[in-house]
């Protein structure tokens, strides 16, 4: 197949899936089957690109030009490749889980739910494949808009209020800061193409560049840097599969992915190091990392705790970008994957607990581990992966980040990462201890594991966390390609 077809296919599959899902909306089992089939087809389509990208090629597709020099363009590089594989691969598992969850928790409007899920995955892939900042921005906005109905899914006042915060913050930051930054970049640098080594050096005065960096980082609201992180906890009103795939993987990772893209391909690491504000933003990220962990400690609602944990973990990746060296940026890239597997497992478990027991507060979960051993075992594995303890994949990203911090000479950052790891243990392990070691208050009679369609996916992702420990080297090798200049086409 030609490059164009290879790139178009993963984008078209979810759209075709969307049409089929809507068309078959009246027959539940058919629609659910189509959802899973779409996810599988999409993952397969994405995988077709892998050999080319790992061989150092950069497949490219120019769709159309809006006006001279500015168009919708796709170009696949390692980081985008990894992000696309991650999102589409985990979609298969989430689709299975979502079917079990939506039936088990007796949610309504299944068709709308699965349909917008497909749109969200379509736009995540668009973000991953974007060849210039404008294309990325377009898909970024589509992702925001398409996930709004998913967050507001329940239609209750609380859901609407949460969704409003979600939309307001994401749209506000993206239009107010990100679009501004893009416009200014276009004006100053004359291009928005993602180029290895960056486009700013020699074109944009570092004084302007410093301002642009702040605009970009706060404009990418999906990366949840404080004080624009409120949308993420607010989005937890959504059904759990949404929290799992979108607010642990697709949406938030789209945010930090964009941060990495911007730093590596627009600013370029060398130019970034000259900017006065890169150090400032580094400390903002470090602050977010610690503060969000502290807030997470105090949350009793399991999903809220996980949400704040996500805010904290996202900042690891921003820290990776702001340390301005290749090892740290690589660590950031790896962390996108590692945290995705860990966190999606945790969310799946939270959902499974809700489906089986209707419990959402950690203080009510005493003794549940004996009734739901698989779920809590998986929770334990997921927690270890997020914390970064071998033999979990999470260890690799922390390893690279800390190495990067050493190389950059930021001892303080190393200390902060250490403290944060302790805090991670502090907020992720107690639920497991309560579940397994504390006796249940009310005897817990009648509680059993959630349906198979819930338990199977979370077991898979938990095992994935372990598998990633052994695949860490391959992943790092693939991602390292993002620093090399593309070979002549």
């Amino acid at each position, binding site marked *: 197949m030609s490059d164009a077809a290879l790139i178009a296919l993963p984008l078209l599959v979810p759209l075709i899936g969307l049409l089929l899902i809507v068309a078959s909306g009246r027959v539940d089992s058919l629609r659910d089957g189509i959802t899973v089939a779409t996810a599988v087809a999409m993952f397969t389509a994405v995988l077709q690109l892998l050999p080319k990208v790992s061989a150092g090629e950069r497949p490219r597709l120019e769709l*159309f030009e809006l006006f001279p020099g500015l168009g919708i363009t796709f170009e696949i590089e390692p980081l985008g490749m990894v992000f696309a594989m991650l999102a589409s691969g985990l979609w298969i598992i989430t689709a299975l889980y979502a079917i079990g969850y939506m039936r088990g928790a007796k949610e309504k409007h299944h068709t709308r739910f699965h349909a917008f899920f497909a749109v969200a995955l379509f736009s995540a892939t668009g973000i991953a494949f974007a060849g210039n900042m404008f294309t990325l921005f377009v898909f970024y906005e589509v992702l925001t808009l398409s996930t709004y109905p998913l967050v507001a899914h329940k239609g209750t006042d609380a859901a*609407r209020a949460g969704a409003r915060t979600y939309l307001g913050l994401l749209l506000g930051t993206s*239009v*107010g800061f990100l*679009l501004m930054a893009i*416009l200014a970049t276009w004006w100053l640098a004359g291009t928005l193409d993602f180029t290895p080594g960056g486009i700013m050096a020699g074109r944009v005065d570092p004084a302007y560049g410093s301002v642009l960096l702040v605009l970009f980082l706060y404009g990418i609201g999906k990366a949840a840097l404080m004080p624009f992180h409120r949308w993420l906890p607010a989005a937890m009103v959504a059904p759990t599969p949404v929290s799992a795939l979108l607010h642990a993987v697709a949406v938030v990772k789209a945010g930090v992915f964009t941060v990495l893209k911007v730093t590596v391909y627009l600013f370029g690491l060398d130019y970034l190091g000259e900017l006065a504000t890169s150090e400032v933003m580094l400390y903002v990220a470090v602050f977010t990392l610690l503060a969000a962990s502290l807030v997470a400690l105090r949350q009793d609602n399991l999903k809220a705790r996980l949400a704040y944990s996500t805010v904290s973990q996202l900042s690891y990746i921003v820290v990776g970008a702001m340390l301005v060296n290749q090892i740290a940026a690589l660590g950031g890239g790896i962390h996108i994957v590692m945290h995705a597997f860990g966190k999606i497992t945790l969310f799946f478990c939270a959902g499974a607990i809700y489906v089986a027991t209707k419990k959402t507060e950690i203080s009510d979960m005493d003794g549940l581990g004996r009734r739901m051993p698989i779920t809590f075992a998986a929770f334990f594995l997921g927690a270890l992966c997020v914390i970064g303890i071998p033999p979990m994949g999470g260890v690799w990203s922390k390893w690279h980040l800390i190495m990067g911090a050493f190389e950059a000479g930021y001892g303080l950052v190393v200390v902060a990462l250490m403290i944060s790891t302790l805090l991670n243990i502090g907020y992720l392990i107690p639920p497991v201890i309560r579940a397994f070691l504390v006796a249940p208050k009310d005897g817990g009679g009648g509680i059993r594991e959630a349906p198979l369609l819930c338990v199977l996916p979370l077991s898979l992702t938990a095992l994935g966390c372990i598998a990633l420990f052994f695949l860490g080297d391959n992943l790092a090798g693939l991602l390292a390609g993002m620093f090399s200049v593309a070979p002549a086409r």
Partner: protein
Amino acid sequence: MLEQLPALQVAITLTAAPVVMMLGRASRLAWVLTTLSCWASFAVALLLFNQVADGSVISYEMGGWAPPWGIEYSIDAANAWVLVIIGLISALVMPFARRSVEQEISESRIALFYSAFLLANAGLIGITLTADAFNIFVFFEISALASYALIAMGQDRRAVLSAYQYLIMGTVGTTFLLIGIGFLYIMTGTLNLGDLAARLPEVSDTRTIRAAFGFIAVGISLKLALFPLHLWLPNAYTYAPSMVTVFLSATATKVAIYVLLRFVYGVFGFEFSFVELSMAWLLMPLALLGIVVPSLVAVFQTNVKRLLAYSSVAQVGYMILGISFASVLGLTASILHLFNHAITKAALFMAVGCLVYRLGGVSLTQLAGAGQRMPWTMGAFVVAGLSLIGIPLTAGFVTKWHLLQAALEGGLWPIAVLLLGTSLLAALYIWKVVEAAYFQEPEDSTEVVHEAPLGLLLPTLLLTASTVVFGVFGSFTVQSARTAAAALMGGVP
């Protein structure tokens, strides 16, 4: 035949008007005739546009009298652009009008209604075509008189009052324009715009010419609803029949803006307007206030039609802002927005017309549940709404991009930031509507509400689709706007 096109352009609708009026109770025939003449008029506009798209100018002597004695019609890339807007909107609004007008206007008045519509249309076309200052005044009054009648035919009794209010303010505006034209005539002895432009530089350093400029600018600003002279607009748009709101919102203020551009750039000239009189420093604050204040007011409206009317005032602010940058890029952005906003706002008001047709009104409470009951209409509203906000890949974004570039080019960073902020306000008021329509349960959920009839829906969807098409393939409109801007700037690239 082809050289008579300029005369035909205004003659078709102008002569159709009395014929339609005489049809009396044959309301269906009146509609057919009106529709056909609007389509013919659109075809002529396209032909004219095609002739001048390369930057050439057509000069037509009305009745064979050579200017400056006779009236000259002069068509360049700028006014052909406006003619296409008028033609497009009236050609699309007519299929929409049949069912909507049958519901809102009593049978016996339908022929009269269409007759007034044709007159309004002819008036706007005339303003755009003519190169004679006094002729502009006359056509302004023709279109205005017809518009007052159209607005007064709204169902609510406040429609009459709004029409009266508009009549008073509109007449003051056109009379100011007339005074200004008088001053110009004393000083130069000509009314032909081209001659005026040639003779003005000799006398430009006089109090009379400066007074003329003031009167003309204020008079036109009243007609184009520049903040704070916009007070007539929200009421007029809110209470007019649906079809009239669609037409007026997309064309009337646009034509007035074109006249302002013609006088400021074409007659007085860039040098006089912006260097000598520093017009930018008057327009810019007004434009900015005109964007921010009405946007804020729109956020608090509960009637969707009124909300969109205030948004129209804000959008006028965007166009004036582009002019105030006093650069080719800014002017291009303004001219682009004439078109992009026309299709966007027309699509929105058409969707509102569909909602009115089925729900009887468009307060936010009445809209509850409309998302499920009228999915196509609300879908169109959302897409056109995105264009109004300026989301990428919609027509609104193309303008906003150029406007922001123009702001950056002028080194006006704070204005660029402010513009992005006001986009958020637009997002806020559009989202209010969306939330009411999609996430609120209707009070009486047993009531059966159908999707709008195809006659209303198709034009709505067509216009909505065009906001996306012109958002994705922006090169054509950008190129045309650039040619038009160059024509107005007098060939200055």
